[in-house]
């Protein structure tokens, strides 16, 4: 009977821990959840008459040329200083409450090297209305393949 109790309690503990790590993996984000935007919400926003954000791709140019969100601009990878400088240059003259949306989609969300530094750079400049597009796997899977508005080229 004692052995059974130990088995049951160990299993219950394992179950709880597995649940917690699953939750944590699903929710982990380098950006505060309140400032994330889901692709489907962005599509709705773009189709509405509401104010549109300035959409900036902060990843790879090669990927941008293949496909990007219609109406978005390429500014350079947030992972390196040259990309960040281009980003700063692009936004320096804008009012600090300008609605800006950053996105990348080069890699799975938890591995993206670009969005966090770009987001940090905008915050350091005093921008207060910055959102980041939550792309779970990559831009192909989570945007293009879903038929969302996509453009090619520069």
């Amino acid at each position, binding site marked *: *009977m004692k052995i*059974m*109790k130990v*088995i*049951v309690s160990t*299993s*219950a503990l*394992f*179950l709880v821990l*597995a*649940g917690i*790590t*699953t939750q944590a*993996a*699903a929710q982990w984000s380098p950006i505060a959840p309140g400032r994330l935007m889901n692709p489907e919400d962005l599509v709705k926003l773009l189709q509405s008459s509401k104010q549109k954000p300035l959409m900036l791709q902060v990843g*790879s*140019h*090669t*990927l941008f*040329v*293949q*496909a990007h969100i219609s109406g978005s601009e390429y500014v350079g*990878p947030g*992972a*390196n200083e040259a990309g960040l400088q281009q980003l700063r240059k692009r936004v320096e003259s804008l009012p600090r409450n300008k609605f800006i949306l950053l996105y990348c*989609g*080069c*890699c*799975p969300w*938890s*591995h993206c*090297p*670009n969005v966090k530094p770009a987001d940090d750079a905008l915050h350091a400049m005093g921008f207060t209305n910055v959102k980041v597009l939550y792309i779970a*796997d*990559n*831009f*192909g*899977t989570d945007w*293009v393949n879903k038929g969302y508005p996509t453009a090619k080229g520069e």
Partner: protein
Amino acid sequence: MRPQIKWAILLILAGASIAGFNSLRQHNPKSGAAGAKAQTLAPDFTLPQLDGTQLTLSSYRGKVVLLDFWATWCVPCREETPHFVEMQQKYGDRGLQMIGVSMDDSPDPVRAFYQQFHMNYPVVMGTASTGEAYGGVLGLPIAFLIDRDGRIVSRHMGATDPSVFDNDVEKLLSTR
């Protein structure tokens, strides 16, 4: 069966399922032939290598080619590179040729990476049109396994378990 034993088994199974799901969430490669224009001829290309010389994919006909689209800033790509180096060493004599297609915007970081990771296989600088020819490289890494006749056998999207590559390559090398 005693009720406690039943509960214990149920809990263990549930825990294992959740742990397995958790593991899948964090390691979510999409592998296989289905979505990859499998068994079609791999689009040919001629692209510059890091030393400036040109590499033509079709010149490797007769070898099994593992074509890896990657970038230096891509964390899962960095994690896969040491295994690809090992694979080239292990299977090269039997006819495997690893080829890296860097999707970096400039070759400078690629050269540094090549040295740092002691890469032992050619790397070319990819372009948007190369990516488009392969169905759109809109997330990294993506690897295509190409048989000796130049046909795409499988596509592996996202970080892929090394054993998957080993098994696939072993199978292809043992044909012919």
